[in-house]
């Protein structure tokens, strides 16, 4: 059972539909106790970092997420969920969850050929191996809509890169947490494969490799 964190984040229903399509049992929850008892968690998100952090705090979900991460529950962050797991976001200069040290940075367009938000299909290049990349060819394209991107302090937390204006982290992670800037739930068959891989990921096995 995958628990999808509900914090008025916008795309939790799209994520749910994709899991339903794949036949993966799931529920949407905003209850901190259900977050802590989850088998695995998806932390979705669309919108403003500051507003998102405010809702998380109001519902005590920020503390629940930190506890879930420390307890080793597999967590997948999506889009805004890949940004507010960092220490801070430049969006509204917001203090974030700090599950991974780093900052969500704003794209700085140098010339008009690069439109912001970065919206559309772009290639993702893997920087390492990971069980979530199984069956996904390196360089596969995923669907993006964003104006900020995650930048961990430690390059070892960067699992994949994409290019737009600059080279930016497309997938970041640490232990039982992995987070993607793109929308896996809207990235066609390859995105569905990624979600299916998450459903069977055991972070404990990674250490044994």
């Amino acid at each position, binding site marked *: 059972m995958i628990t999808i964190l509900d914090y008025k984040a916008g795309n939790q229903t799209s994520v749910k*539909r*994709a899991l*339903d399509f794949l036949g993966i049992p799931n529920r949407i929850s905003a209850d901190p106790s259900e977050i802590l008892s989850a088998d695995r968690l998806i932390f979705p998100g*669309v*919108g403003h970092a500051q507003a998102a952090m405010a809702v998380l705090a109001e519902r005590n979900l920020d503390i629940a997420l930190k506890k879930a991460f420390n307890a080793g529950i597999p967590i997948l962050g999506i889009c805004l969920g890949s940004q507010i797991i960092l220490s801070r976001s430049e969006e509204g200069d917001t203090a974030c969850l700090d599950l991974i040290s780093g900052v969500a940075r704003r794209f700085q367009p140098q010339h008009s050929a690069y439109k912001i938000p970065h919206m559309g*299909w772009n290639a993702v290049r893997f920087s390492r191996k990971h069980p979530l990349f199984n069956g996904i060819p390196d360089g596969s394209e995923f669907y993006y809509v964003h104006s900020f991107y995650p930048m961990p302090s430690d390059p070892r937390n960067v699992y994949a890169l994409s290019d737009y204006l600059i080279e930016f982290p497309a997938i970041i992670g640490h232990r039982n947490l992995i987070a993607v800037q793109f929308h896996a*739930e809207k*990235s066609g068959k390859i995105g569905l494969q990624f979600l299916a891989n998450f459903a069977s990921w055991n972070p404990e096995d990674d250490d044994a490799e």
Partner: protein
Amino acid sequence: MLSKRIISCLDVRDGKLAKSVKFVDTRDIGDPVEKAREYFEQGLDELVFYDITATSDKRGIMLDVVRAVAEQIFIPFSVGGGLRNISDCYAVLHAGAEKVNLNSAAVVRPELLLEASNEFGAQAVVLSMDVLRSPISAQIPSGFQIVIHGGRKPTGIDALEWAIKAEQLGAGEIVVNSIDADGTREGYDIELTRAISSSVSLPVVASGGGGSIAHIARVLTEGMADAALVASMLHFGSYTVQEIKNSLAKEGIKVRL
């Protein structure tokens, strides 16, 4: 770098798929959800559903279509046709669409773009414009005029001026549909697409007239479009999405394969 997108538009009337030729004489060509799934399987990048239902009492049918699409198709899609206010927009977004496609209603009341952009974010607001070539005048200096209500009513608004204004109001993307080229399969209006694309810094989707891969290639390069809307070429089975994308890739155009 971003790939150029291949988008298909499905015109839906009373829940069924239709394809217009110059906006008149629409022919029934099947089930929109089935067609959408076929294109998703083929690797289409994005879909647009346009509700051309004449009567408002059948509006609910479209929301059923949107929900069914959202449950089975995992690429972005937008919905347009008959969206007049924020609550209409909310209904289709809540049913599972990523974006709303605003056309006549935004021409009649441009503030709708601003309201929708503030409410849902610019990335969720697509301005769709129907454009007819018109004699150059003081009112229409570009020679491209906005028409509304399915292409039947000229507005006296210059298309370039409208595109710039729409960007200022918060549109996140513009679909440029040439009424002159629509359904002819004789090629996109390159001059029009290029003119709009050079006037705004938003992604521009070229629409109307695509009949061959060469047409698509030309509008994505010379026409400076970020995406091409392909309808007849796919709907009547002349091409598959893969055939179109493979050919474009051979010509050096970056597409998602």
